[in-house]
């Protein structure tokens, strides 16, 4: 389980960090309201929500490293999979990103979150399905 745990923790870090550096707010762009106030665009809120997804995912990865029981591993895998789905849903259906296809949130943040979400989901499924021995645990 160590390898899967480490990979999940690494993905959690990336899910938290990548959107911070690739959203329009970071590029100095913001929405100007009618009253002249500047507010962040929705890609910024996607980035914030990604952090909220990444923190529990990191914890799951840490627990995976030390879990020995098959049932614990499966439960953690399922939870990890759900958070992977969240990472995919954030920039697509839940909050979203900007309209302009060349904005950094569309070029990097959105595809990165989807990609890492799919990897996380895959690792979650793998930790539920793999035999103990291939998962690095004695049978």
């Amino acid at each position, binding site marked *: 389980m160590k*390898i899967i745990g480490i990979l999940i923790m690494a993905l959690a870090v990336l899910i938290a960090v990548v959107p911070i550096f690739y959203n329009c707010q970071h590029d100095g762009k913001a929405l100007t309201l009618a009253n002249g106030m500047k507010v962040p665009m929705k890609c910024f809120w996607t980035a914030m929500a990604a952090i909220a997804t990444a923190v529990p995912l990191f914890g799951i990865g840490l627990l995976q490293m030390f879990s020995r029981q098959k049932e614990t591993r499966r439960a953690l895998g399922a939870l990890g999979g759900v958070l992977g789905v969240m990472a995919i849903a954030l920039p697509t259906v839940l909050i979203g990103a900007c*309209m302009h*296809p*060349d904005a950094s949130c*569309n*070029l*990097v943040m959105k*595809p*990165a979150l*989807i*990609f890492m979400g*799919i*990897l996380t989901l895959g690792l979650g499924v793998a930790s539920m399905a793999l*035999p103990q*021995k*291939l998962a*690095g645990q004695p049978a």
Partner: protein
Amino acid sequence: MTLVRLTLRNLAGNAFRSWTVFLCALVVAGLTLSATLILRGAESSLRLALKRLGADIVVVPQGAEAKVETALLMGTPATAWMPAGNVGKLATTPGVAVASPQLYLASLSNASCCSASEMFVVALDPANDFTITPWLKQRLGSDLRLGEVVGGARVFTPPGERYIKLYGYHLTLKGNLEPTGTGLDQTMFLTFETAQAVAKGSKTLAEKPLTIPADSVSAILVNVRPEADPRLVARRIKQDLAGVSAIPSLDLFQTFRRQMSGVLRAVIALMGITWALAVGFIALVFSMAANERRREIGVLRALGAPRTYVFQSLLAEAAILALGGGGVGLCLSLLAIYLFRNLLVVSLGIPFLLPSVPSLLLVVSGGLAVALTTVTLAALIPVYRISCQEPALAMRE
């Protein structure tokens, strides 16, 4: 206990060996697919762009070749001017069937009077245009009217609005062209009449006026007669018209083609190194695993397993790891290229279009075949040696 079941048990029994070979196959397959997709994607993109242009020869002001190519390929706006009288001269050049002028314009950068920043805008003469107009007639059943535009695949009306603003002028998007993976996807097409109307209106509506020099055009697209050779006609145009460059479409995008062949060489070198390293590493891992299992294999032989059984069993392990790792590598690679295709275009500066499904299936099969060949080739020698070893020798300390 069938061969397959025993093979799967053996794979599970040596996690380190299995994961190592799996990852090598994943990397080899993923890299092969990525490189092939990027190169083929760029090539098919260029082909589509040329098809979209529809011209046998592109005539541009001398010195403006590179920036016009960049504009067409990457959508980076370019302006270039030559006398409009060239159109008439070209039309009478022997071998020329049609000569259609175009104006190359650009929207302002970060201006509220323009919906899109720094967008490449191409104005056409509907009287003799053969690039967009036939498509318009087929798709929309009519030509473009004043104030109407056609966009490349990635041009859209801003959400919540009814018009695209260009220098404060309101334009109606009538339709979008099929994607080409090039800058033509981010280009807006309108008529000369609309362009002049925008320029006139920009004096009062825009932050900065749009200036179209009088009696000037940016480029002339030429179709030659069926019996004429485009290269010869291009040469004649250069001789007859001063201050212009006549580029046969076959020679268009030469800069990018040279860049692509440079990229191709680098990719082939990288793939070659990766493949050699993977083969070496897998051979080493299999050699170590075979040595570790020497005694076990000796026991199998003693129990009645012929040499061929041992050989097939070990190669089956290699094949399963290759197909598993290769399959995952291909999926990840395809997913990454699909998700990051726009970033690829922007960061590598090359056009890119995902291939059609049949073409993709072919490439994926190729990638899987490469992974399978790599792993089984690497495992062949250690597997052959261990299966031929005398059982008594294999079982010795």
